[in-house]
């Protein structure tokens, strides 16, 4: 009985985590203009207390040349086909050779910048339990908050999933970030399994 319950919890948790990671993947910055819609709102920087009246386009602090240091952008990443399967959207971002190769020249270590805070909303992903949509807040390259802004609630079974699995997703996203790891060792994943893996999220984030 106890075992059965545990098993079910694992299944439910996995479903939510998978959706979360798929969303993380599809949040990858992209240059495809059809995927990135225009900014819907400009929100004040999480670092600045005064904020809401601050003109986001003006470099607020004189010492910093980059507007992105002081202003935080809230961006909605649109999705061309909201009904497409999670694996479909994941494979879009985990595409082959040339796109994933990145040579990162020196990070801007010369400017002791205040980390930019931005909020990114993922596309709605249809899961077998219902639509899931996640919004994450990044300070610099670190995820500081993850919120499910849409989760299944129509069926009683779905409610059960929402109440247990979605909080779990938030914790796990944060736990992986705070562990500040470079890579993940685990039982061998397939190419398909990779798309839902923490390693895939690390590769995509490039942090």
């Amino acid at each position, binding site marked *: 009985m106890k075992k059965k319950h545990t098993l079910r919890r694992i299944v439910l*948790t996995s479903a939510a985590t998978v959706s979360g990671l798929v969303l993380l993947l599809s949040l990858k910055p992209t240059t495809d203009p059809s995927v990135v819609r225009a900014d819907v709102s400009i929100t004040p920087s999480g670092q600045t207390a005064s904020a809401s009246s601050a003109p986001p386009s003006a470099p607020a602090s004189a010492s910093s040349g980059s507007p992105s240091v002081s202003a935080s952008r809230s961006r909605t990443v649109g999705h061309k086909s909201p009904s497409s399967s999670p694996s479909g959207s994941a494979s879009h971002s985990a595409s082959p050779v040339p796109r994933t190769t990145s040579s990162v020249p020196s990070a801007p270590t010369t400017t002791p910048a205040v980390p930019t805070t931005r909020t990114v909303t993922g596309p709605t992903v249809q899961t077998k339990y219902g639509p899931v949509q996640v919004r994450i807040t990044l300070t610099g390259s670190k995820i500081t908050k993850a919120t499910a802004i849409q989760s299944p609630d129509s069926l009683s079974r779905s409610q059960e999933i929402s109440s247990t699995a979605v909080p779990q997703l938030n914790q796990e996203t944060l736990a*992986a970030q705070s562990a500040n790891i470079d890579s993940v060792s685990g039982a061998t994943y397939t190419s398909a399994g990779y798309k839902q893996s923490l390693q895939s999220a690390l590769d995509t984030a490039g942090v």
Partner: protein
Amino acid sequence: MSEAARVRHVEHAMGTVFSFDVRGFSDASRVQAALEAAVASLHHADEIFSTYRPDSQISRLARGDMALQECHPDVRDVLGLCEDAERRSGGWFSARYEGGRGNVLEPTGLVKGWAVERAARMLASAPAEAVCVNGGGDVQLLGGPWRIGISDPLRQGGLAAVVEVGAEACETAVATSGPAERGCHIVDPHTGEPPVTDVASVTVICPTLTAADAWATAAYAMGDRARAWLEETPGAEGFAVTSDGGTWHTSGFGRYVTAVRA
């Protein structure tokens, strides 16, 4: 030399995904060339060793359509390493087992680790100071510092422990075996059946991934005997998560670990 210089790459091969992370180099073009060569070496290994491809040398060798002397030198090297691992694991690692199709030649338990280790060395000789190559969850590190999460087999996306190596580290490999993500692909070489065990996953750390991958496979097949065996295997440390959520580790594992799940 730019401290922040870094090259990352993701490559699909051998039915899984390889993630490269290279730091600490001054000549990016040489690292890029080494990366291309390393990637090519993975695909070459896949062509030769894939048991899913009927025309691979390993498949033809198993059918008797090809003699060992006709095979690429890599085949002899790998089969030699397999024999070595079989001997040193008391038969718990084996490239041959009695399967449903008769005597199956299956060096897969060692090939991936071997291929990853070789790819990592190609990158280090670019030269680069710190190299991390992850082949489907098995990691070869050359140099450092690196922090490697060990996946929690009971909570997808969660970590059971974090392994840390410093900048002074030379060679460190982290391999994990378990049924978690691919269904159980490990069999007891004595029975041809999945092992009877309460170990959900077992992780082995030793200098080279060729050994770590084989030891992790053998340790998972051993089940409860793995802990004592890893304890007495020179140069290897082990960590396991059991199906009830508990963990165990060998006495020397602690020097790598910064955080273990409660």
